[in-house]
C-alpha cells in the first residue's frame, strides 16, 4: 500500500486507468514487455519497479504467462470431480505443454472439465468435445460451450426475478432520486441487508460512513472478483442479471454522493465482462448514464475493470490497490475504504450479490426485505451447487432455509457418496455430511456450529477423495494466492502445504503440535481473511476426519 502510488494513479483515475493499461499491454504476449512497462511508469510518474512489480503479481500478466494459449481450471470442484487430468492430456494434443497454463476456477463447478481458450471458457465431458473446441476455438472462437445449470427460486424471488427491460427497471431510479438520499438509505438500513461477499457487514453502515465524508470525489466499487473455487453466484448475476448489479451501484452512488462506479470482474469470467460492458453501453444509449441523467441532476459513469488473475483481489483493499495498478497487497485498516479507498478517496466496496438486492429493497421497501429470513440474516441468498449434486445449479432461498432441505430436496441429494460439503469457498467451513441437518442458511447458524456461510457456494468432497489431499490442496491454494505481505500467511501457507505433501509422499508424519501452532499463527496473526481463514476448514478437517488423517500425524 502506497499513499503516493494511490495519488499518482488517481491523477488519471478510472478514465485512463493504469491497471487497465497494464492489462492491455499483456494481451499480445501474455506479459507486458519491459519497454512498455517503463513507458507506463514514466507516463504515470511512478517507478519502473512499480509497473514491473504489479505485472509480476498476476497470473495473466507475469512473465511466466508468456505464450500461454490455453488454461485448465484447477479449482477445487474440478479437482474433486477428477476431470482435469483428462482435459490437460487432451489439450496437450493441440498445444505444447508450455502453452497450457492454469486458471483457478472458471465457475463451471456445476459441470467441471473446465478450461479456457482464446478468451472463452468451456467445459467439456469427452475427449471429442475437447478436441472439437480446441480446433474450432483456435480457428474461429466459439462453439461447443455447455454451461447449463438450473436456476431456481425456492422462496421470495429477489435476485432471480425476470428482467422487465431497461426503461421499466430504471424507472425506480427517478422515483428514488425524488425521494432523496436519506429515505433511500433508511430503507437499506431497515432491510438489514448484510454483505454477501462473505464477511456479512451491514451495507447501510458503509453507505452512511461514506456519505458523511466530505470529498470532491467518491467511488462505488463492485467486487466481482469471485475467486472462491466452487462459487459462481456473481458470474450468474453478471451474466444473467447485470442490471440488478449496475442499478445497485448507481443507487449506492446516489446515496453517498459518488458519481463513478467501477465493476471489477475477474478475467476468468470473460463472458461476464462482455455482458456487463454491453449492459453499460445499453444504459448510455438509453440515457441512463452520463451527466444529468434524465434531467435529475444526477451524474453517473461506469468503468469495467478486467482483473488479471489473483484470488487476493477479492479482499477489498487488495482490490482497490489492484484498480490503482499497485500490487494488490492487503492494506491495513484503519483507514477503511469508506474514508480512504480508491485513489485515497471515500469508496464503497460491495459484493455483486449485495448490490443486486438493492432494486428489490428500494422497490418493495426495507421492511419487506427484512421480513424475509430472520434475526440478523435477512433477505434471500443465492447458493451455487457443484456437479456432485443431482441437480447442480443456482438456487435462491430465503435466509433461514434448512441446509438439508437444500441438499436433499432442492438439489436432489448427491450423485455419489460424499463425505463433506465445503461451504463458503476455500475459507469456509468443511461440513461433514452428518452436520448438514444441524445447519440453516444464515450467518448465525453456521457461526454457531463452527462453520462459515461465506458466499454460500457448495462444493462436495467425494467419499473416495482423501481428506489429507484436500487439506494439502487448501494450503497450496492459500500459498499460491497469498499476496505475500504478512509473514504468517506468506510463510505459513507454504509450510503447511509442504508438511501435508511430505506426509503423503515421504516417511514423514506431521507434528501435531507444530500443526496446531501453525494454524494458531495463521488464524490469529494474519493480516486478512485469507491466511486467517484457511485454518477454519483445516480445523474442521482435523476434527471431523481424524480417523482418516491420523496415519499422517504424529
Amino acid at each position, binding site marked *: 500500500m*502506497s*499513499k503516493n*502510488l494511490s495519488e499518482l494513479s488517481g*491523477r488519471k483515475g478510472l478514465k485512463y486507468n493504469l491497471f487497465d493499461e497494464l492489462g492491455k499491454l499483456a494481451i499480445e504476449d501474455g506479459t507486458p514487455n519491459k519497454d512498455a512497462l517503463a513507458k507506463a511508469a514514466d507516463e504515470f510518474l511512478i517507478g519502473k519497479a512499480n509497473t514491473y*512489480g504489479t505485472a509480476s503479481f498476476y497470473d495473466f500478466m507475469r512473465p511466466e504467462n508468456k505464450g500461454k494459449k490455453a488454461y485448465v481450471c484447477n479449482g477445487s470442484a474440478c479437482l474433486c470431480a477428477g476431470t482435469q487430468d483428462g482435459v490437460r492430456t487432451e489439450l496437450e494434443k493441440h498445444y505444447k505443454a508450455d502453452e497450457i497454463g492454469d486458471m483457478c476456477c472458471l465457475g463451471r463447478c456445476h459441470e467441471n472439465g473446465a478450461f479456457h481458450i482464446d478468451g472463452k471458457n468451456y467445459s467439456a465431458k469427452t475427449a471429442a468435445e475437447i478436441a472439437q473446441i480446441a480446433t474450432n476455438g483456435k480457428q474461429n472462437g466459439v462453439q461447443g460451450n455447455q454451461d447449463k445449470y438450473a436456476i431456481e427460486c425456492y422462496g421470495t424471488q429477489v435476485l432471480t426475478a425476470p428482467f422487465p427491460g431497461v426503461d421499466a427497471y430504471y424507472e425506480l431510479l427517478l422515483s428514488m432520486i425524488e425521494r432523496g438520499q436519506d429515505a433511500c438509505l433508511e430503507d437499506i438500513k431497515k432491510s438489514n441487508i448484510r454483505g454477501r461477499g462473505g464477511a456479512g457487514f451491514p451495507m447501510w453502515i458503509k453507505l452512511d460512513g461514506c456519505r458523511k465524508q466530505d470529498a470532491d470525489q467518491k467511488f462505488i466499487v463492485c467486487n466481482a472478483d469471485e475467486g472462491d473455487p466452487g462459487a459462481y453466484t456473481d458470474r450468474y448475476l453478471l451474466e444473467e442479471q447485470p442490471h440488478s448489479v449496475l442499478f445497485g451501484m448507481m443507487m449506492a452512488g446516489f446515496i453517498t454522493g459518488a458519481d463513478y462506479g467501477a465493476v471489477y470482474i475477474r478475467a476468468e469470467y470473460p463472458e461476464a465482462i462482455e455482458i456487463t460492458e454491453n449492459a453499460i453501453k445499453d444504459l448510455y444509449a438509453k440515457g441512463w448514464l452520463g451527466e444529468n441523467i434524465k434531467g435529475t441532476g444526477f451524474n453517473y459513469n461506469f468503468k469495467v475493470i478486467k482483473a488479471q488473475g489473483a484470488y487476493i483481489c477479492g479482499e477489498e483493499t487488495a482490490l482497490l490497490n489492484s484498480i490503482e495498478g499497485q500490487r494488490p497487497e492487503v492494506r*491495513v485498516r*484503519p483507514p477503511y475504504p469508506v474514508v480512504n479507498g480508491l485513489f485515497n478517496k471515500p469508496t464503497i466496496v460491495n459484493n455483486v450479490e449485495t448490490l443486486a438486492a438493492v432494486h428489490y429493497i428500494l422497490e418493495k421497501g426495507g421492511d419487506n426485505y427484512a421480513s424475509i429470513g430472520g434475526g440478523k440474516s435477512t433477505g434471500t441468498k443465492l447458493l451455487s451447487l457443484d456437479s456432485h449434486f443431482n441437480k447442480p445449479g443456482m438456487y435462491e432461498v430465503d435466509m433461514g432455509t434448512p441446509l438439508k432441505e437444500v441438499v436433499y430436496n432442492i438439489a436432489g441429494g448427491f450423485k455419489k457418496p460424499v463425505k463433506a460439503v465445503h461451504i463458503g469457498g476455500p475459507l469456509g467451513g468443511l461440513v461433514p455430511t452428518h452436520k448438514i441437518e444441524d445447519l440453516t442458511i444464515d450467518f448465525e447458524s453456521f457461526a454457531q456450529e463452527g462453520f462459515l456461510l461465506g458466499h454460500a457456494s457448495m462444493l462436495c468432497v467425494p467419499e473416495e477423495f482423501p481428506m489429507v489431499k484436500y487439506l494439502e490442496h487448501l494450503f497450496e491454494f492459500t500459498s499460491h494466492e497469498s499476496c505475500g*505481505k504478512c*509473514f504468517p500467511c506468506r510463510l505459513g*501457507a507454504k509450510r503447511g502445504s509442504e508438511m501435508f505433501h511430505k506426509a503423503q509422499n515421504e516417511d514423514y508424519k506431521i507434528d501435531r503440535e507444530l500443526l496446531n501452532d501453525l494454524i494458531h499463527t495463521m488464524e490469529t496473526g494474519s493480516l486478512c481473511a485469507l491466511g486467517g481463514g484457511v485454518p477454519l476448514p483445516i480445523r474442521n478437517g482435523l476434527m471431523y476426519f481424524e480417523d482418516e488423517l491420523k496415519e499422517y500425524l504424529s
Partner: protein
Amino acid sequence: MKKVAYINNRPFAIEEGETILQFVRRYHGKNAVPTLCDAPNLDPFGSCRVCSVDVALEQGGKTKTQASCHTPVQEGSYIYPESQNIQKLRKNIIELVLTDHPLDCLTCEVNGNCELQDVAARVGIRDVRYPDGENHLDRKKDLSHPYMTSDLSKCINCYRCVRACDEVQGQFVLSMAGRGFDSKIIKGMDETFFESDCVSCGACAQACPTSAISDIFQSKAVKATEKTRTVCTYCGVGCNLEVSTANGEILSIQAPYDAEVNEGHTCLKGRYAFGFYNHEDRIKTPLIKRNGKFEPATWDEAYDLIVSKFKSILETDGPDAIAGISSARCTNEENYLMQKFIRAVVGTNNIDGCARVCHSPTALGMQRTFGTGAATNSIEDLKHTNCILVIGANPTSGHPVTGARLKQFAMKDGNISIVIDPRRTELAKYATYHIPLRPGTNVAVMNMMLYYIISEGYVAEEFVKNRTEGYEEFEKQVLATDINGMAKIAGVDKNLVREAALAYARAERAMSFHGLGVTEHSQGTFAVIQIADLAMITGNIGRKGVGVNPLRGQNNVQGMADMGVQPHQGAGYLDVTNPDVNGLYNNFYGRKVPSHIGYKIPEMFDAAIEGKLKALWIMAEDVVQTDPNTHKVRKAMDSLELLVVQELFMSPTAEMADVILPGASFLEKSGTFTNGERRVQRVNQVVAPLPGTKPDGQIVVDVMNRMGYPQPDYDPAVVLDEISQIVPFFKGIKWAELGKNGKQWPVKEDGTDTKILHGEEFKRGKGRFVFNEFAETTEIVDHGREFPFILTTNRELEHYNCGTMTRRTNNVKILTEDTVMVNPADAALKGVKDGDSICLISPRGKVDLKARLTDEVRQGVLSTTFHFPEIMVNELTGDVHDSEAKCPEYKVVAIDFRKSKGLVGRKVGEMVEVN
C-alpha cells in the same frame, strides 16, 4: 478527565489518534513490544505481525489479537502486550521467518545489530521444527553499485526498504515482484542497483532490519567504537549526521531519526560522500611558491611570509589594498574570525564571501522588503502548508532532503505546487503548474502573477493595509503591465500563469522556495523582491506554513553572511557606514574599524587588475573555477602581490597562490553551521585533523596573533560567546545549550529561539512594496542576435559545486561527466544526436561538451552542469551582474552551438583555446 486505556490492567492516559504500539511504547519504552516491519519514519504497514497484542473490552474479558502498529488504541480497552497467547504467536512467527533465513549470524555483517536477531532472542527461539522446505537462501549478492549493496537471501520481506524509497525519498526504485512465498525485492525491473534509477540516498539500507540491503561501508555493523553527531557540510539543508568511527577513522554515516532537520533521512552526499576527508590528495603541509613551484614549508615560515607581506603592503598601500574572501564551507566561528581579522586587524571592509555569487540578491531583496535577509519560516512548515511555489530551484538535486519533502508534498492530491523553471525538473513533473519560462524572465512572469492577483481581487487587503507600505503606487504600476507583451517575452502561456497565480493567492497557506535560478540574473534582486511581494500581497507572512524561503546553497552560507562576511555590513548585518555602529565595532574589537564600504568580490577582481588591490586571502573557496569569466579571474589573481589560499586540496585557485595553508574538513573540527532556516547547529569534531593540517579558525587566530592582535586559540565555545555579544540575534546562543537540534535565530537572551519571522511586524516595521519593471539582460540585448541560444546552468544530485569533494569519492563512479541538455528539436536543427560532442560558443569562449537530448529543456535553451571543472564552463559566462547585489548572471549566457569537429586526439570536455 483524560481518556485511559489499560496495559496489563493498569490505567494510562491515551492520546488522540495514537496506535496501540505508540501507546504502549510511550509508557513502557521502545522494547515493550517487539517489531520488525515498523520503522520510525515510515507509515504503519502491518506485515510482520510480531507487534500483535491481545486486546479485551473489559478486564479479563474475551481477547482479540490485534497488530498494535496499525490499530488505534481504544478508550477503555485492556491491552495485554505479553500474554501467553502473544508470546506463543511471536515465537511461532519468528520460527516461520527462520525457515527461510540463513542461520549464519556470526559471520553476518550486522551481527549484534540485527533486528531479527534481537527479536528472535527475545521470543526465545530454540530450534526450527519445520521439515526442510523450499527457501531463498541461494539468492545472489548485488555488489554492482559504488555504494549500495544487497544480499536478498537475508531478506525477511518486511518492505521497509520499499517503503523508505517511496515514503521518504519518493523515488520508487524498489518494489516487490512475484507474489506470496516467491515475492522478492526488486530494484527497477529486477535489475542491479547500478542499472536501476537508484539515487543512492541510502534510506533503504538504513531502514533494512537485517543486512539484506546495506552499503559498502557496512553502516549497520557494530565495529564502531564511537558515534559522533554532527552536521553535513554539503548543502544548506543542514542534515544531522551520525558518524561512526573506530581508531580515529570514519567507518560510516547514518541519519539520526531524532534530527528535526532531516528526520532520519539524508542524501548520497551526506551519507556516503565523506571519503574525501582523508583522500591522498589532501594538502598536508603549508606550501610556499618559490620560482613558480610549490615547496613544503613549516607553519612558521608560511606565517612569517604572510605577516611580513601584509605588513609591508599595509605600510606602502594602506589597508584597502588587502582583502579577504571567507567561506560558506567554514563554521560561523571561523567566518567571524576571518571578517574580524580583515576589519579589526587589517583595518578594511574588503571582506566578502561566495554568497556574492549565489544568494546576495536574496539577502538584499529580502532586507529591503522585510528588513531581514533570511528565510522567514522553517522546513517543517511543509507539514502545514497548502501550496508551494518553487522558483528557479531544483531541490531534488541541489537540496535533496528538502527536495524529497517537496516532492512528497507535490505528489499528494489537493496540494498545490507551482514550479517556475525553464527546465522540466523532477519536481516540475509532479507539479500542479509548471511554467517553463525563458531563462532571464522571472521578473516578467512574476509581474504577470502580481497583475492577475490584483486585477482579479485576490489581494489580502487587511494584511496589505496593516502591515505594508507603498502599496498604492505599486498597484498602479503592476496594473500597467503589458500582459501579452510579458507573456511573449517569457514565452509562457498567460492562462497558465494566471491559474498558477490565483491558485497561490487562494491557498490558505502558501510557501515559496527559491534558488539560484532567481538570484543569478541581472534582475536577481528585483525577482527576490517580487517573491516577497507575492507573499505580502496574499498575506503569506508571519504564520505557520507560509513565507519566503530561499534554498541556501552551501552548508553555512547563511551563517557566513550573519557573521559579517560582506563589505557593507559587519557581524549581525550592522551597517558599517553608520557612525553608531562604527563606534560599537571600534569599542568591541578594541581597534579602529573603517566606516567606508569595501570591495565586493567582482570589485576585488577589478581592483586587482587595476593594481589597487595587492593582497588577497582566500579561505576555502575556488574562485578561478567557480566565478564567472575565468580569464578575468585568472588575470586578477596574477596581478596580486600576495595570494594566500586555505584549502583541503590543490585547486586551480590554490595553484595560483603564493602561500597555501592546509585547512581541516568539517569532520576534523568543531563549530556551528547555520542552515537555510536560520538554524544554528553544532558541528562536532569527529576525528582529529590530518597531521599537518589545522582547523581554518586556528589558522586565522595564528595570523591575528602574529599581526599583533591578541586572540585566544580557536575554541568554538569561546568564539560563539564573543559572537553572542555583538550579533544581536545570537544573543542567547550558548555552545553548551545548542543541544542536538540547534536553535533558530533570533535567539533571545533567555535562550528561546524563533521558528517564524515577522509574526506581528516586520523587522523593518512595515513591509515595503517596490515595483520593478522587466528589463532584458544586456547579455541578450548585446549578443542575442549573433548567439541565438541560451545556455543556463544546473546541478546534478551526485556532485557538489566544482566537485572538489564529491569527485574524490565514489560519487564520481555514479556520475562520470558533465553533459549539456539539448532539446531534440534544436539538436535536429544542428544535426546533433544524443551523445554527440557539441561545441558551445559564447562571445567569450568555446567549450566542448557531450550532448544529452531531452525535452527537460525547452527549445532555444541548453543547460549544463559545472561539476567537472576541466570543462571550464565559466569560459563561456560573461560579466553581467545583478544590478543591485552584483551577483553574476550564471543563468543566462548567449550562445550558439554546433556539432564538434576534429575531436580526434582530444577528449570530450577538454579545454579549448579561444580564438
